[in-house]
Every structure is written in C-alpha cells, then in structure tokens.
C-alpha cells in the first residue's frame, strides 16, 4: 500500500501575510462603522417608540384574564383545606396572580367547588355562581364535586356539581393534592388562552 505523498510546509511562512490581511479587514470595518445603522423606527416619536407593541386583541385580553383569575372564597368540605394549602406559600398561587381570594362573588372570576355539595347547600352555590360577573369559570375539585363520589347514591348529596352550575375543569382526587389543583388551574389557563374576545352587545 502506497502512502500518499505529502508536501510539508512551514505554516509560519504565510502567517505574516494572513495577519496583514486580517488587519486590513478590521481596519475597513472600523472605517465603515463610523456611521451608525439607521433605526427603522426612527420616524416614530420617542414616547411611541418605547411603549407600543403590535399584537391581537385576543392575545392581550386573554393574557390579562389568564393571570388575574380571582377565585371566590368558599369551601364546602375537606377539599377546601387543599385549596387553602394552594393559596399558602408552599404552593403559592400568587405566582399566577390568583392570591386574591375574594369574599364577594361580584369581584371573583373563578369558583372552585371544593367538597361535597348537598342539596341543602345547592341553592346557595347556585346563587354565588349567578352573582359572579362574566367572564366566569368553575373548577369541580374532588370526586364529590365531580360526580358525588361515595355519596353519589345518597339521599342528600348532589351527584356532581354540574347538575347545578356548568363546569370548565374537573380535578379528580379525594381530596386532590394542591399540586393537582394547580395543574387543573394551568389547564384552565390554557382554556382561557383559546377564548375569543366578544364585546357585549
């Protein structure tokens, strides 16, 4: 087998030329760069230039709605403690702009039905839902709120809170852990993201 012939050259022979060429290029760029590039937004005045982003109405309104979902402050049973844990610093829903649990349904956007709903409590829950302003969302938390759970056949328990109010997100568990509810809330955020803004007629 014949080894391909290789003509060895000393790289230092050409290095001076290479250095010279590099220096010339840099000098060229430096002379050209004395004039700065023109800003494409130069025609705008200063205030507009710093404050305008072009986007769609849907994206902006849904962004605002998504990160300011205020829940109404009520719990029906043991699931409420997981909801409270979610509001506490360990899980901390203030990361999503939700830390304001409103005691008045008129200031709330989200109803977390946390616990067993009995028929005797049903009119109050329905009234709270009806007092909330549009747009409003409902999370059914725990199996009791989803379907009545173990009490589905009972004489006193509503078999699923969607018999009373429309539900957007179901969070299963008995009770669901706070991180499961947090996941449900992020799913609700995804749902709000897809909404289309319709002005009231």
């Amino acid at each position, binding site marked *: 087998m014949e080894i391909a012939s290789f003509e060895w050259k000393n790289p230092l022979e050409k290095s001076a030329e290479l250095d010279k060429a590099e220096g010339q290029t840099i000098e060229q760029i430096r002379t050209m760069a004395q004039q700065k590039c023109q800003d494409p937004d130069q025609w705008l005045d200063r205030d507009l230039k710093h404050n305008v982003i072009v986007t769609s109405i849907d994206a902006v309104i849904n962004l605002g709605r998504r990160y300011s979902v205020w829940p109404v402050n009520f719990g029906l049973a043991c699931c409420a403690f997981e909801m409270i844990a979610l509001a506490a610093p360990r899980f901390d829903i203030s990361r999503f702009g939700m830390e304001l649990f409103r005691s008045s349904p008129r200031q709330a956007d989200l109803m977390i039905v946390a616990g067993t709903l009995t*028929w*005797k409590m049903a009119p109050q829950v329905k009234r709270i839902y009806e007092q909330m302003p549009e747009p409003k969302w409902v999370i059914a938390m725990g199996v009791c709120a989803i379907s009545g759970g173990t009490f589905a056949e009972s*004489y*006193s328990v509503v078999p699923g809170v969607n018999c009373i109010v429309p539900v957007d997100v179901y969070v299963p568990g008995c009770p669901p852990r706070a991180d499961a509810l947090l996941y449900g809330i992020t799913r609700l955020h995804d749902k709000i993201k897809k909404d289309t803004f319709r002005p009231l007629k």
Partner: protein
Amino acid sequence: MTVALSGKDLATKIDKAISQTVIGIADNSITVKSQGLFQVAKFLKETPELEFDLLVNISGVDYMDYFEVVYHLVSLKHNHSMVLKTVCLDRDNPAVPSVVSLWRGADFLEREEYDLIGIRFEGHPNLKRIYLWDGFKGHPLRRDYL
C-alpha cells in the same frame, strides 16, 4: 373520665320513686317505658345524689320491630354518667315525650332524631326538620328507607 353508674343501683332508686317504669336493666344502662320517660328524666336531674345536669347526646336506633331512643347523661357535679334508654313500639307513629324543658341542649338533638329517624317528641317547642329540607319525603336513617 366520668364514673359510669351501675344500672342495677339506678333501677332500684328509680323504682322507689316511680314504680313500674323500668323495663330493662343492663350493666350501665336502664330502659324505661316511654310514657314514664319524662318523670324518670326529671327524677334523675333533680335528685341531689344523682343530679344529671348535662345531656350529652340523644341517639335513635331502628331495630325494625321497635325504635330505641338513647340518652347519655352526665353529672358535672358528681362526675358520673349513665345511659338512659326508652322504646317505642309503634312504627307508623313513634312518639316519646320531649325533654327540652329539662335540658335545653335536647332541642337540636331531638329535631335531628325527628328528621332522620322520624320519632316525634311530644311537647317539643319547634319540632321540624333540621338537616334536610322542608318537603323531603321519608326518614333516611330508618332501616326500610329506599
């Protein structure tokens, strides 16, 4: 903890005061006729050496043949307790006398029994449903409900 009084001692005491009301004696409970319940309760509350001044709980038991109403009584002064029971045999219209005039705490307890088991308490000032809503059909904790 309170000291549970023996049923036998209590029965002899009650028999001495009100004759022919005690129909059953157990280790630490006595059963009385429903007609004489109020007199027995009054006796247990007002006799100085017994003085049961606190009614802890009222429960109703459905044995299908008859209903039993159980009263848990405690004396805070003497630190002793007892269980008083009564029976009502009429299934269609079970009724026992109310003890609200002796222990005010019996008010809600008797309303609960009326609501869930359907035992009427004669002489109760406000006997209506407490847990379930007005218009609910039947008494759900009876054995033959559903």
